[in-house]
C-alpha cells in the first residue's frame, strides 16, 4: 500500500493522514453509539414512566420495568459507552502513536459484529432470558461472543501502540491501554464466577457489584480521562500542567479500582471485610480524581473562559468535574456513615449515572465534537444546537442524579428499619421518581439534536465556510485565530 511508504512530510500532514485512515471506523462507531444512546434515553424515559405508573403497560411483559430498565442500562453501557469509547480510544491512540490505521475495513466489520452481539443481548433481555445481574444482564451464551468481538476491536488499538514511532508514552495512551486490558479480565472473571454451577449466591451478587465498579472506574473512566488529558492541552495549547501528577493519578487509579465495588453489600451476608475494603478503596479513589481535576484546572489556568466557547473543552471540563463529584458521592454510598442508609436504594443508580453520564458520556461528547470535524473535513453545522445539547444533558443528568439521591434518602431509613414493610420504602421514593422521567426526557431531546448534527456531519453537510470552528457562543474576540497565528509564527 502506498500509505505505508509515504513519508511523514510534517506533523499536519501526518495528522490528516491518520484522521483520514480512521474516518470510516470512527464514523461507524460514533453513529451506532449515538443510535444506541437515543434508544437508551427513550427507554430510560419509558422505564421511569413505568416506575411512576406501574400499571401503564399491564399485560405486556415486554414493556415492564423489569425488562425495560436492564435494556436501557445495557444499551447505555455496551451500545453507547463502549462504542463511543472504541472510537475515541482508536483516534487518540492513532494520533498519539503517530500511526495510520492499516485495516479500516476489518475494524468496520468487527464493529458490525459488536453491534450484532449487543442487539442479540438486548433482545435476550426483552424476551426474558436475561440474567438479572445488573450490567451483566445478557443471556450467558452472549458473553464469549461479546468478549471475542471486544478483543477483535481493541487489538488494533494495542497494535497501533506497539508500533508507535515515539518511544515515550503520553498519559492518555497509558489510560487507554489500561482500559482495554482491564475489560477482558473483569468480564471473564465476573461471568465465570456468576455462571458457574453452584457457589454462594450472595457472593455472585458481590462479584457483580465489583464488576460494575470496575467497569465504571477502570474500563470507561480511563478512556474519558485519556480523552480529556488530550483535549484540554490541545485546545488550550498548553502542556499538561504536571506530568508527575498525571502519573500519580493514573497509577493510583489502577492500584485502587480493583478493590472497589463490594461495598454495595455492606452489612450483607458476606465476610465483613470485603465491603470494608471496597469502602476504603473508594476513599482512596479520591486521590486520582483530585489529581486529574487539579491538573486540568491548572492546565487551563487563565484560559478557563475558553470552556464557554469550545464545545470540546466545555464538555470535557464538565466531565472532569463530574468525575470528582461522582467519586465523592461514591465515597458516601460506599462507606458506613451515610452508606448504611443510602445503599440498596435508588441513590445507587443515581450515583452510577453521575459517573457514566455526567462524567464519561459528557467527556465522550466533547471528544466527538473535537474529532468528527477532523475526520470528515467540515465543521459542526450549528453552535446553538451544541449549546442546547450541553445544557439539556447537564440539567437532565443533574436532575436525575439529584432526585435519585433524594429518593434514596427518603427510602433508606425505611429499608434499614426491619419493622417497616418493603412497599413503604418503595412508596417513599415515588414522589421523586417523576423527576426521573423528566430528566430522561430532557436527555432524550438533547441527544436527538446530537444525532441530527452527527448525521449531517456523516453525510458531510457541515459548515464549509471560513468562519473557523463552530463555537458554542460567537466568540467575542478572536481567541482561536489569534492562537493559530502565534503558533504559526512560533513554528516558522
Amino acid at each position, binding site marked *: 500500500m502506498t*500509505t505505508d511508504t*509515504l513519508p511523514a*512530510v510534517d*506533523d*499536519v*500532514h501526518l*495528522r*490528516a493522514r491518520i*484522521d*483520514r485512515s480512521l474516518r470510516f471506523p470512527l464514523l461507524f462507531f460514533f453513529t451506532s453509539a449515538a443510535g444506541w444512546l437515543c434508544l437508551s434515553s427513550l427507554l430510560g424515559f419509558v422505564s421511569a414512566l413505568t416506575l411512576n405508573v406501574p400499571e401503564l403497560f399491564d399485560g405486556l411483559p415486554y414493556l415492564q420495568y423489569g425488562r425495560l430498565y436492564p435494556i436501557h442500562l445495557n444499551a447505555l453501557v455496551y451500545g453507547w459507552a463502549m462504542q463511543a469509547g472504541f472510537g475515541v480510544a482508536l483516534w487518540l491512540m492513532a*494520533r*498519539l502513536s503517530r500511526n495510520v490505521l492499516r485495516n*479500516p*475495513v476489518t475494524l*468496520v466489520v468487527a464493529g458490525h459484529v459488536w453491534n450484532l452481539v449487543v442487539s442479540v443481548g438486548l433482545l435476550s433481555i426483552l424476551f426474558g432470558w436475561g440474567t438479572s445481574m445488573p450490567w451483566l444482564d445478557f443471556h450467558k451464551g452472549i458473553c464469549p461472543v461479546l468478549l471475542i468481538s471486544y478483543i477483535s476491536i481493541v487489538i488494533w488499538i494495542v497494535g497501533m501502540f506497539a508500533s508507535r514511532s515515539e518511544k515515550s508514552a*503520553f*498519559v*492518555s495512551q497509558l489510560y487507554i491501554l489500561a482500559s482495554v486490558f482491564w475489560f477482558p479480565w473483569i468480564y471473564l472473571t465476573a461471568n465465570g464466577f456468576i455462571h458457574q454451577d453452584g457457589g454462594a449466591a450472595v457472593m455472585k451478587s458481590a462479584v457483580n457489584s465489583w464488576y460494575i465498579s470496575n467497569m465504571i472506574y477502570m474500563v470507561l473512566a480511563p478512556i474519558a480521562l485519556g480523552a480529556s488529558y488530550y483535549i484540554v*492541552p*490541545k485546545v488550550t*495549547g*498548553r*502542556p*499538561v*500542567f*504536571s*506530568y*508527575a*501528577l498525571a502519573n*500519580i493519578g493514573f497509577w493510583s487509579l489502577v492500584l485502587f479500582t480493583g478493590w472497589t465495588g463490594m461495598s454495595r453489600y455492606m*452489612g*450483607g*451476608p458476606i*465476610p*465483613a*471485610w470485603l*465491603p*470494608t*475494603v471496597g*469502602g*476504603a478503596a473508594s*476513599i*482512596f479513589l*479520591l*486521590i486520582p480524581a*483530585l*489529581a486529574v481535576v487539579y491538573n486540568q484546572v491548572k492546565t487551563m489556568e487563565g484560559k478557563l473562559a475558553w470552556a464557554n466557547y469550545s464545545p470540546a473543552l466545555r464538555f470535557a471540563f464538565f466531565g472532569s468535574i463530574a468525575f470528582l463529584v461522582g467519586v465523592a458521592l461514591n465515597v458516601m454510598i460506599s*462507606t*458506613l456513615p451515610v452508606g448504611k442508609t443510602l445503599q440498596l436504594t435508588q441513590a445507587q443508580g443515581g450515583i452510577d449515572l453521575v459517573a457514566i453520564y455526567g462524567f464519561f458520556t459528557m467527556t465522550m461528547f466533547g471528544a466527538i465534537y473535537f474529532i468528527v*470535524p*477532523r475526520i470528515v*473535513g*467540515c*465543521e459542526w453545522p450549528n453552535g446553538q444546537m451544541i449549546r442546547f445539547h450541553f445544557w439539556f444533558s447537564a440539567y437532565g443528568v443533574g436532575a436525575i442524579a439529584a432526585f435519585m439521591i433524594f429518593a434514596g434518602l427518603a427510602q433508606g431509613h425505611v429499608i434499614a428499619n*426491619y419493622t417497616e414493610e418493603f412497599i413503604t420504602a418503595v412508596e417513599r421514593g415515588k414522589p421523586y421518581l417523576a423527576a426521573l422521567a423528566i430528566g430522561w426526557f430532557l436527555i432524550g431531546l438533547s441527544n436527538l439534536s446530537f444525532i441530527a448534527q452527527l448525521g449531517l456531519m456523516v453525510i*458531510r453537510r457541515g459548515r464549509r465556510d471560513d468562519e*473557523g*470552528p463552530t463555537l458554542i457562543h460567537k466568540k467575542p474576540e478572536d481567541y482561536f485565530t489569534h492562537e*493559530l497565528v502565534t*503558533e504559526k509564527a512560533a513554528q516558522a
Partner: protein
Amino acid sequence: MNEELPNPETTHLDYGERSSVAEIHAAVQREKREPLAGFQPVSMVAIVIAGLILVLGGSYLGAYNGGFDLKRSYAVANYEAAPRPVIPGFEVKVDNRPWIDRWMEAGKEVYATCAACHQPNGNGLVGQFPPLAGSEWVVNGSERVGAIMFPGILGSINVKGQVYNGVMPAQGALLSDKQLAQVMTYIRRSWGNNGSIVTEEMVKYARDKYGSRVQPWSEAELLAIPGDAMLPGAEVDPLTGLEPGAAPAGS
C-alpha cells in the same frame, strides 16, 4: 500550501474526499501540537492531601475490617442482630421435640413400605403376614431384625405361636442406612414394643455383615443368631441423638 507533496493515499473506503492532502481541512491545520507534558513537580500540599486520604481510608479499613474473619458478616463493635422478622404465613417452625420423637416420626414414614403387609397397627394379617407388635423376633436383640432386613425370609416361621409360610422380601437394598435405622427403631418401640434404639452406625454394621447375602433366611438360620445379640454401636441419648456427654448440636 505544500503543493510539492507526493500524491496522497486514497483508501477504498473513501468517499467524496478531494484527492489531495494539500487541502487539509482547517480543523486539522489549526490544531496545536500534540500535547506535551509539563514538568511541574508535585507540590507539598498535594502530597499532604494524598496522605490524609490514605490515612482516612486506612483507618476506615482498620475500624471495620471485622478481623478479616471469613465467617463474620458484621464489622461494627457491639453489633446485635435484629430479631427475626415475623412475616405472616412464613413462620419458621423450629422443632424442639426430643430427638427420639423426630427419629420415630421419620421411622413411621419409612414404615409405610412395610405397612402394606404388616399393617399400620403392626398386627399383620392372620395366616398371611406375621405381626410385628409383640413379636419376639422384633423386640429382643437388634441383630436378628437387622439380619432380616437384608435378604428377607423364606419358608415357615413361628411368630407368637403361629406358623407363617410366606415370603418376606429383602428391604435393605431399597433403603438407606438412616431410613433402616429409623424404621427398625420404629418397629422396636411402637405398639407397646419396648426395644432399644437402632442407629445408623449399627445398620452400617448389619449391612457390612449381611448386605451381600442373596439367599433369604430360613427360620433355622435365624435362630442360629442369638436372640439377645445386639448390633454393635454406641448408644445414644434419646434427647439429643448424640452419644451421652457429647456437645449439643449446633455449637
